[in-house]
């Protein structure tokens, strides 16, 4: 029911319910406060902008993952796609002028995503299987094209991109701005556009959608294609940050993206999830790594903590649905 925040807070047990309902933001705030208390370095602009730079790539593919998950699907190929497309971009930027290289990379990303979309929507393949296959194909192709080693940017266009990716505007890293713009776009499309309405409808009841005259196949196809295009955008960003495209990039990123979307309260059955909460999920995951790094916790215990936080967040959502 649409209650205002004030009404929610004043109803019996309201504060607790409010916390549970908005648990993602709650966890985020607690983590920020905790981080600020525990480390002096946390609230420095250097650290914060590092944090944002680190999450932007995964953040962008998480938005793609969100729209796929909203339809009830999953896209396991995005991590490998980032690798293949980063290599592709490195080759293209060394060959063509910059705008053309960017455009081509995104078009190729869209096309690769379309393959998954075609298999899922028109060949009725299980999303898990179709994108699993594409995951290994993309990774393999990445290594083939790169001949096993990273490809460094050599042209003026490439240097311009790496400048862009490592600098800030008004104190915010440029690549984070790209990420935030994508989040805002997704928010608008999901909330105020028919596109969002339809993919959520498909995710919550595919058969009812079909019998309501919705072009179910078209939209299922589109979400994978868009996810591919977003993987391309993420690839351009991560390649530009390091000035090279490597087939080792984006390793296991699909899992982080899924985790971010789930921490953001989305349902893997589809039909439930928002862009702003996915953003929170991305930031929460980023914050955890960041603070553990500041505390000099080695990377193996970090993985354990990350997993524990995912479980905690999802358990909290269980309370929400009760």
């Amino acid at each position, binding site marked *: *029911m*649409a209650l205002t925040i004030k009404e929610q807070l004043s109803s*019996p047990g309201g504060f607790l319910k409010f916390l549970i309902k908005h648990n993602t933001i709650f966890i985020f705030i607690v983590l920020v406060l905790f981080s600020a208390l525990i480390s002096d370095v946390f609230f420095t602009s250097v650290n914060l902008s590092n944090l944002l730079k680190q999450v932007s790539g995964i953040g962008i593919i998480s938005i793609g993952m969100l729209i796929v998950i909203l339809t009830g699907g999953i896209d396991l190929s995005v991590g490998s796609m980032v690798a293949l497309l980063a290599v592709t971009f490195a080759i293209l930027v060394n060959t063509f002028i910059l705008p053309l290289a960017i455009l081509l990379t995104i078009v190729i990303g869209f096309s690769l995503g379309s393959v998954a979309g075609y298999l899922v929507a028109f060949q009725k393949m299980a999303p898990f299987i179709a994108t699993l296959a594409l995951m290994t194909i993309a990774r393999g192709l990445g290594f083939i094209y790169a001949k096993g080693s990273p490809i460094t940017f050599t042209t003026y266009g490439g240097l311009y991109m790496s400048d862009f990716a490592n600098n800030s505007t008004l104190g915010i890293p440029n690549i984070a701005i790209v990420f935030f713009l994508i989040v805002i776009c997704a928010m608008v499309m999901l909330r*105020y*556009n*028919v*596109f969002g*309405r*339809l993919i*959520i*409808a498909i995710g*919550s*009841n595919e*058969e*009812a*959608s*079909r*019998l*309501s*005259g*919705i*072009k179910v196949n078209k939209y299922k196809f589109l979400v994978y294609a868009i996810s591919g295009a977003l993987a391309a955008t993420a690839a351009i960003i991560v390649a530009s940050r390091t000035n090279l495209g490597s087939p080792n990039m984006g390793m296991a990123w699909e899992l982080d993206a899924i985790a971010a979307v789930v921490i953001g309260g989305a349902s893997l059955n589809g*039909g*439930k999830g928002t862009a702003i909460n996915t953003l929170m999920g991305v930031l929460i995951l980023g914050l955890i790594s960041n603070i553990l790094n500041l505390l000099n916790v080695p990377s193996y215990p970090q993985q354990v903590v990350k997993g524990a936080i995912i479980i905690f967040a999802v358990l909290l959502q269980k309370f929400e649905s009760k």
Partner: protein
Amino acid sequence: MKTENSEYRVEMTGISKSFGVVSVLEGVNLRVKHGEIHALLGENGAGKSTLVKILSGVHQKDGGKVLLNGEELNLKNTHEGQVKGISVVYQELSLVNDLSVAENIYLHKLGANKFWMNWKKITKDAQELIDSLGFKIDASARVRDLSIVQKQVVEIAKALSEDTKVLVLDEPTTVFDPTDTQKLFDNLFRLKEKGISIIYISHHLEEIFKIADSITVLRDGVDTGCLPVSETDTDSIIRLMIGRELKDLYPVRNATVGAEPIFEVKNLTAKNNLVHNVSFSVKPGEVLGIAGLGGSGRTETAKLIFGAEKKKSGTLILNGKEIKTKTPVDAVGHQIGFVSEDRKEEGVFLPLSIRRNISVTNFRPISSRLGFLKVDKEYENVLDLIEKLNVKAPSSEVNVGNLSGGNQQKVALAKWLSVDSKVIIIDEPTRGVDVGAKVEIYNLINEVAEKGVGVVVISSDMPEIMGISDRIMVMHKGTFYGELTKDQFSEENILRYSIGKALKTT
């Protein structure tokens, strides 16, 4: 045995139950004798299902007392209830699709105390049980491959596989046609002879008068009386159920029927041949009823027309022009609407709000060319329809899953009213819907017809289909067997055509 110690098999007194702030039951009493069929009646949301779930152990009561054979009962879960001999057949089917019929029937016993399963014996026992009910189902078949009617039978067989003392049936006949219903009733009488107490929940009052010994009526969480069936009649039961007189169940038809058909179907045949050579036409303002037994191809015909199933051949003509409906998208494009019989799976989006449900069929009037929603217009349209259909909900933002069956059905209909449909096909318009909402839905169908829409109604409910149709086509074995004009309407005539017999000549 303590069986004869008390007059009643089940005695529930002063039962109260609330979910959060919503109070569902407030001091309800229900007393069921040994070997009695006791009808539990009430509108949707009156608390029938909750009461039954307290009896079976799904929910725990907040207050009151439950006695079984005079002994107090405090069940913590359904397993304890089953051990005591309380079996429930719920409205929502609870079978495991990927297991066989036999495995489903004995699911609760699988892995009980033995390590190895005797599959042969289980399948044999299950087959005997089903055969004894008089239905034809292969016990080794997978549940997924069964029709909804067969699934319901399996559900009932499952409840009877135990040493059942109290059998609760929640709307068991909604999916049944008259022959199947009669078979079920015969079985219930047999069980009653054996001394089993049966609690029977139904919206079909005529059924109650056929089988029940006594009834208890619930209204808004309190019981409004328990009386023997012999001392009551339909009108007084309806008065107890809705608290007012209900004059005319079926509205007066005053739509002007056009001369030329708005929609014609010629020689429609399905790819799988389950439906063949179906031809009919419907005129603007006309309500055409399609009757027939379950499995006679009624729903399949509707889905064929709507493009939801594959056609082999056949012609569709809308307003004199031939149209093609390869997919539902095409059908909706030609302004044909379809309300499915399976409301929860195919009709509405349970986790989405009423607003999102209604808007889903037609975004054109409420969005810009780039697909951006004009939310003001959407609200206007949705609130208008909610008011017009009298959907009972606190706001348009309530999830449809939280509404009662009748209100869900209204939302499913509203979807097609927000588009200006030329033809609307409604499959089982009032399945699982209470009396009050039924009348509203009938009025709605009438209003839609008055606007010049061609309405096709498929229904297994004979009084209903005779009450609202101008003409009835009866299906038998996948094709139209005969047509009945208004003066020929009678249950007997519909049944004769349904089973492939000619009408009696008088």
